[in-house]
C-alpha cells in the first residue's frame, strides 16, 4: 500500500485540488448523462402511452 493514512490519500501529495477536481467532474458527468437519458426515455414512453390511449378512446366513440 502506498498510503499511510486516509488523510494522506485525500491530500494527494499536495495535488488534492487538481486530482479531485479532475476525477470529480468525470464522476459527476458520467453519472448525470445516463440519468438524463433515462428521463428522456421516460418522457417519450409517457407521451406514446397517452397517444395510444387517445387513439383507443377515438376508436371507442366511433
Amino acid at each position, binding site marked *: 500500500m502506498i498510503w499511510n493514512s486516509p488523510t494522506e490519500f485525500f491530500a494527494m501529495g499536495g*495535488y488534492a485540488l487538481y486530482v479531485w477536481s*479532475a476525477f470529480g467532474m468525470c464522476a459527476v*458527468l458520467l453519472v448525470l448523462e445516463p440519468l438524463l437519458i433515462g428521463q428522456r426515455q421516460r418522457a*417519450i414512453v409517457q407521451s406514446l402511452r397517452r397517444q395510444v390511449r387517445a387513439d383507443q378512446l377515438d376508436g371507442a366513440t366511433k
Partner: protein
Amino acid sequence: MKHSIIHWFKFSSPASFYPLAGRLIPWFWLLAAVFGLSGLWLSFFVAPTDAVQGEGYRIIFVHVPASWMSMFVYLIMAAWAGLGLVFNTRLSAMMAQALAPTGALMAFLSLWTGSFWGKPMWGTWWIWDARLTSELILLFLYIGFIALQAAIDDPRRADKAGAILALVGVINVPIIYFSVKWWNTLHQGSTVSLTKAPAMAHTMLLGMLLMALCFWMYAVAVALKRVRAIILEREAHTDWVKQLKEVVS
C-alpha cells in the same frame, strides 16, 4: 453465409434493433463497472508515485481515456453518419445522433482534466497550442453537429446536413493525434504508442488501459441507451412502437 447476411440486415431496422439494444445495455454497464473498479484500484492504490510529477500525474487515468474516447467516438459517429448518407438507412443516422452528446462530453472531460493537470505542471490552465486548440475544435464540431441537427425541422434533411459536417470534421482527428509531433507544443508526446515500448511503469499503463476500457464500455452503454430514446421519438408514428409492451400496458 446467406443466413448471416439476412440476420444483419434484420438488425439494421429500428424495430428489431430497439429490443436488441435493450438486451445489450446491461452487459456493457457490467463491463464498464468491472473495468472501472479495477482501473480505479490500480490508479490510486497500486500505481507508484511519479518521480517528476508526484501524485499529480494520477490525472492521467481519466485524462487519457477521455481524450482517446473523444477522438474514437467522433470517428464512429462520422462512420455511421457516412453510412446513413450513402445507404439512406434510418438507424445509421440515429446512431450518429446518439453518439454526438457522449463524444462532446468526452471532449469536455479531456479539456477539463487537462486543464487541472496543466495548471500545477505547466503553470497555466490554458494555452493556445496545437494539441489543446485542436481538441477544443473537436468539442465545437460535436456541438456544431448537435446544433445543426436541432436547427433543421425535417429529420431526413437534418441527418444529411449533419453527416456532411461530421465527415468534413474528420480531418481534425489526425490533426489532434499528430499535433504533438507536427508542432512544437507544450503538451507532452504520446505516453503510449503503437511503435515503441511505453515510457511508464507497467501498473500505470495497465491502470490507464483499464480506465480506457471502462470509458469505452460506458460510451457504448450510454449511446445504446440514447439511441433507444431517439428511435422511439422518431418512429412514434409507427405501429410497432405503439405495440411495444412498455407503451401498451
